[in-house]
């Protein structure tokens, strides 16, 4: 089990190492544009609870990037599956589905971790220095656990690259904009807030922002992220066999 898990994870990390500069550049582009656009457009006039908009944005970008980068493992899995045929190498090996899924999920979480560091460094460049304590990292890691597990599950179910990009368009993009990245969810009407409560990203953004602003985060948000993550992980385990035919 452990050797299989290490093999799957190691393969992904070798690829990350080989593409590191390109990967970091791609992780920085969108957040940099958001920071430039929103920070300069809004200046210091827009404030939330005494924090500038740039300060408000950084924790949201940490949550959003950890989601996007962990979910991006689905694209790599599908390139390996449909283009290189590598997935068959894993299927023909005597490893458990759990080893495969755990290796890919951890690879997704590792990518998310790099993305978080990139955002925090960008924040520093924009003069933002908040509280980046352990609970912030825990929330971000749980968030990436949710989306990396979801990514593996969906990557096993799709039948082509085109299906994969549809999923990104319909699942990830709306969540990125509605999950508390760019505005406080509590400013929305009650009905909208109730709907957004069901998005894992909302819980991640709020927890990360609470820690970054020096407040005590709601432990229930962590429980939701851990629970949803576990469900997605179990779903991923189930779907590995579906990819076989």
């Amino acid at each position: 089990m452990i050797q299989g898990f290490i093999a799957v994870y190691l393969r992904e990390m070798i690829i990350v190492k080989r593409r590191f500069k390109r990967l970091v550049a791609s992780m920085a582009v969108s957040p940099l544009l958001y920071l430039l656009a929103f920070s300069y457009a809004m200046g210091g006039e827009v404030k939330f609870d005494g924090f500038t908009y740039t300060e408000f944005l950084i924790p949201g970008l940490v949550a959003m990037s950890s989601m996007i980068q962990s979910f991006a493992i689905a694209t790599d899995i599908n390139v390996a599956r449909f283009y290189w045929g590598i997935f068959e190498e894993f299927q023909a090996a005597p490893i458990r589905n759990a080893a495969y899924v755990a290796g890919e999920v951890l690879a997704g979480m590792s990518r998310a971790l790099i993305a978080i560091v990139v955002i925090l460094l960008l924040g520093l460049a924009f003069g933002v220095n908040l509280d980046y304590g352990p609970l912030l990292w825990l929330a971000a890691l749980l968030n990436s656990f949710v989306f990396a597990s979801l990514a593996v599950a969906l990557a096993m179910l799709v039948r082509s690259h085109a299906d994969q990009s549809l999923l990104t368009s319909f699942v990830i993009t709306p969540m990125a904009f509605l999950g508390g990245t760019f505005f406080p969810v509590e400013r929305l009407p009650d009905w909208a807030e109730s709907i957004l409560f069901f998005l894992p990203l909302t819980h991640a953004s709020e927890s990360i922002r609470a820690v970054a602003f020096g407040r005590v985060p709601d432990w229930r948000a962590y429980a939701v992220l851990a629970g949803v993550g576990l469900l997605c992980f179990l779903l991923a385990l189930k779907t590995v066999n579906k990819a076989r035919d």
Partner: protein
Amino acid sequence: MIQIQNLQKSYGKTRALAGIDLRVGQGELFAYLGPNGAGKTTTIRILTGLTQLTGGTALLNAHDIRTRSRAAKRQCGLVPQQINLDGELTVRENLDIHGRLFAMPGVTRKQRILELLDYVELTERAENLVKQLSGGLKRRVLIARALLHHPRILFLDEPTVGLDADIRRRIWGLIKKIQQDGTTIFLTTHYIEEAEFLADRVAFLDEGRIVALDRPDRLIAELGGWAVDQLADSGMQTRYYPDREAAREAMAGRDTGFTLRRVNLEDVYLAQTGKKVQ
């Protein structure tokens, strides 16, 4: 040893395998021939755990592929038809990942990689990215990878497809060498001369069924040793004769318009199914 009983596979209403019975002995080189869509690759995919069977049983060295799938997988190495190496990894990294997937301990794995790189004459290419290699070199990496964990059964699915004749013959030498080391080899190919040169026994598959199975020399002898191809209004006609003299006698009085040649496995297949091996 491979034991297959009534192996079946359906994709919805389409039947890919209609009940295959087969037994391949330890150390045997067995060729599995047939036209595109006959079920050759499907059989290999089932036996190597890439596709689930619909019915029947299959044992690899007494391990049931359904109930003891991981033990069965440990028995086999696979050289797939499609090159499925990781282009962004080096040759050595590809082999290393494979060794880890088969839980090979570090020292053994590193040693075995060196041995196999030497075996397939790729030592100097070990640190090259796979995407920089030619098709023939990639095929050799696939063979090294398949052999890395000391499989007792090696599945070769069209191992020389698309390769130049000289590289193909080089790979044949490698396959013979692997068999001499005691490995059971299950080969699919559409190069009929490949099967004739390499195989101890061949099976012809058509529409998911085995239509002929025996040693190549026996199958050829059953049809007759010699063939005469003759151009007729309806196309090429082939007649078979037990020996050269009988064939010459039949063609007596005709100087042109026919070709006298030895019977080969393709004739056997044509006679069985009326189709050409592809």
